[in-house]
């Protein structure tokens, strides 16, 4: 050591306006003291701390100062550059709120090279399992870990495995559900593309535990790179004797194949997925019997999500107790979230269960851009709901999310701000489910369509109080009577937006207003007199003659005649037409 230059990393975390100036100040301070050979000042793009003024980090000593003022510069240089001391007053201890288990190798290993995965202790879990040669002990370890299905339902993984193991049948199957379809969720794709061997190893271990000789990856065809990399991983694993006949020289043999999903959302549902692999139309069938008893081609089948399977090898390597130490009482381990929407840092994060929304949004996500007000976070995709800001301090786990009217789901987390209309959001998710409904059962097929029509009327300002009552009744029916999870959960976005944001529905119904300015039919178009150059273009283009006036008097839009087509807004060259609520 010692040969390396020190680094002074500078970033204004409030609005980035001061980054350049502070970097210059540090530079000239270094020159003044003839220290510029010993340290380099560099402007950071991101320092993982937000809204704490100018942040300065000294590397390699890894000292972080927050809310740095000009007068602190001298002290920082004297203490931390000339010497290895610290300025206590402005010192911060940044903590990394993420724990990477599923994503431990993503971004580190070369996904197309098995040697990289092996060097990162890859397939060590499989070796341990085969050495131990005891199915019950494997399942016991998973039980101890408290791992629950990460695809959404949160069913204890060990129980699924155990049901299948208990079945007295020569042929059993394990399926990896990689039919990721929630809008805004992409964790499965990232894992398959970034670390496919983790999932392969998890599947082989699961296969051993339940007594299966064959497994399938069910990957949606829209993920070509994931398919390519999984295929590559499978052939590399075969070459190394980690897959196929006599794995690692033992008498355990196991084979894996890929099946492609053709893009139907419902095929993420277990029974529809099985039908799809069997070459049938992707429609669900009633459960029970559960697939662990009667599954693929009538044989006991375990279906686990990508993220669940990725947690298996680390649990085997480090022990179930290790994972059980992370998380809350009922939800153990970590969860990967795809954090998107109105957030400064869209990212794929892995956090311990029990973390709060506030920590995710502000400490990891960097808050909402453009100083807008945050309204809610949507979790669970089209099966989930919205969680308003007042519940942001709730620890995230399966139960808490359910109590709040949402679900964990596969891990989409979409941040919404004041510009998002809750009626519009409900409509978006419901439309998704209506499009994706397989049409087999009436509650989902008819109920979804009826609800969508009601929502559309509300968003067009044609709603009445009765619409809300009808929405509630149909929701209830769909939740109780639909055949599969798709229909049962499709009303969730409507119910949860109604629960927390009924005022917005009322605004649409009674005041014909969309405060967020999303619902086009409720726009009010007006001529802004100060900006109007009286060219008359709007009047000439209005298809219903709703614009009156002339070049001398100026123009006016008659609201009663206006059909909100937006033509005037589009043609005006001077931005003199306003649209919105006021």
């Amino acid at each position, binding site marked *: 050591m010692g040969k390396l230059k020190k680094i002074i990393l500078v970033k204004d975390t409030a609005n980035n306006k001061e980054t350049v100036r502070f970097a210059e100040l540090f530079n000239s301070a270094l020159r003044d003291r003839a220290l510029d050979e010993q340290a380099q000042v560099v402007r950071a793009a991101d320092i993982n701390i937000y809204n704490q003024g100018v942040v300065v980090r000294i590397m*390699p000593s890894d000292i972080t100062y927050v809310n740095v003022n000009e007068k602190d510069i001298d002290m920082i240089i004297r203490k931390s550059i000339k010497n290895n001391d610290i300025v206590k007053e402005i010192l911060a201890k940044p903590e990394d709120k993420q724990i990477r288990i599923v994503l431990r190798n993503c971004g580190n290993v070369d996904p197309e090279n098995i040697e990289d995965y092996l060097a990162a202790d890859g397939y060590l879990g499989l070796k341990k399992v085969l050495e131990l040669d005891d199915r019950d002990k494997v399942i016991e370890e998973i039980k101890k870990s408290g791992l629950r299905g990460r695809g959404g339902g949160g069913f204890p993984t060990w129980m699924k495995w155990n049901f299948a193991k208990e079945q007295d049948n020569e042929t059993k199957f394990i399926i990896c559900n990689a039919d990721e379809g929630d809008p805004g969720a992409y964790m499965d794709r990232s894992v398959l593309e970034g670390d496919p061997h983790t999932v392969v190893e998890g599947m082989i271990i699961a296969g051993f535990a339940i007594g299966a000789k064959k497994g399938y990856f069910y990957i949606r065809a829209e993920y070509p790179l994931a398919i390519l990399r999984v295929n590559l991983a499978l052939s590399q694993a075969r070459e190394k004797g980690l897959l196929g006949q006599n794995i*690692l020289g033992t008498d355990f043999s196991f084979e894996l194949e890929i099946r492609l999903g053709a893009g139907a959302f419902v095929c993420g549902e277990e029974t529809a997925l099985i039908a799809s692999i069997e070459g049938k139309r992707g429609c669900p069938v009633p459960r029970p019997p559960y697939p662990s008893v009667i599954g693929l081609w009538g044989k006991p089948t375990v279906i686990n999500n990508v993220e669940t399977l990725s947690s298996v090898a680390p649990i085997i390597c480090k022990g179930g107790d290790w994972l059980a130490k992370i998380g809350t009482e009922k939800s153990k381990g970590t969860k990967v979230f795809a954090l998107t929407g109105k957030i400064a840092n869209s990212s794929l994060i892995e956090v311990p269960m029990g973390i709060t929304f506030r920590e995710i949004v502000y400490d990891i996500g960097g808050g909402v851009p453009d100083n807008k007000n945050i309204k809610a976070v949507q979790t669970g995709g089209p099966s989930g709901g919205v969680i308003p800001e007042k519940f942001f301090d709730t620890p995230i786990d399966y139960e808490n999310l359910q109590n709040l009217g949402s679900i964990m789901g596969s891990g989409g987390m979409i941040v919404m701000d004041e510009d998002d209309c809750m009626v519009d959001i409900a409509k978006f998710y419901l439309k998704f489910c209506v499009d994706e409904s397989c049409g087999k059962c009436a509650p989902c097929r008819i109920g979804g369509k009826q609800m969508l029509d009601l929502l559309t009327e509300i968003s067009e300002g044609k709603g009445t109080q009765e619409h809300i009552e009808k929405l509630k009744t149909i929701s209830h029916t769909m939740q109780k009577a639909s055949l599969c999870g798709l229909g049962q959960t499709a009303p969730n976005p409507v119910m949860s937006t109604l629960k927390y944001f009924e005022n917005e529905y009322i605004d649409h119904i009674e005041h014909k207003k969309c405060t967020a300015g999303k619902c086009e039919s409720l726009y009010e178009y007006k001529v802004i007199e100060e900006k109007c150059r009286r060219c008359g273009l709007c009047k000439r283009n209005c298809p219903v003659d709703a614009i009156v006036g002339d070049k001398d008097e100026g123009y006016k839009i008659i609201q009663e005649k206006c059909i909100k087509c937006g033509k005037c807004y589009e043609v005006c060259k001077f931005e003199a037409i306003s649209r919105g609520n006021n």
Partner: protein
Amino acid sequence: MKLTIDNFEQESKSGKPKNKNWIKVGLSTCGIAAGADVVFETIQKAVKENKLDVSVFRTGCAGKCYAEPLVEVKAEGVARVVYGGVDKDTAEKIVQKHVMAKQLIDDHIYSIIKEEDNGEA
């Protein structure tokens, strides 16, 4: 060579040892959509042209979607850095300025990774 339970410890990590100088480019769908394939090619070319002893390889998504394309660099005599928002121009700078001149590049650093052997040979 096929691995077995007995030879696992010895053989599983016998793959080619990593060069101590390397550049990793995040090449998953997300990175490629942001232009990581061009970055990857640019870096490969620049390393070759300058006859540098640096391995260039691909990785998956590191999770910082907002900062794609991401490039991580470990080169002797300079801190290990994750650069983000890398374009063709920055990719060239990474080779010429970071690897060759041992100077960090402004406005693209997303983290500096602390390690015991911080760039020391």
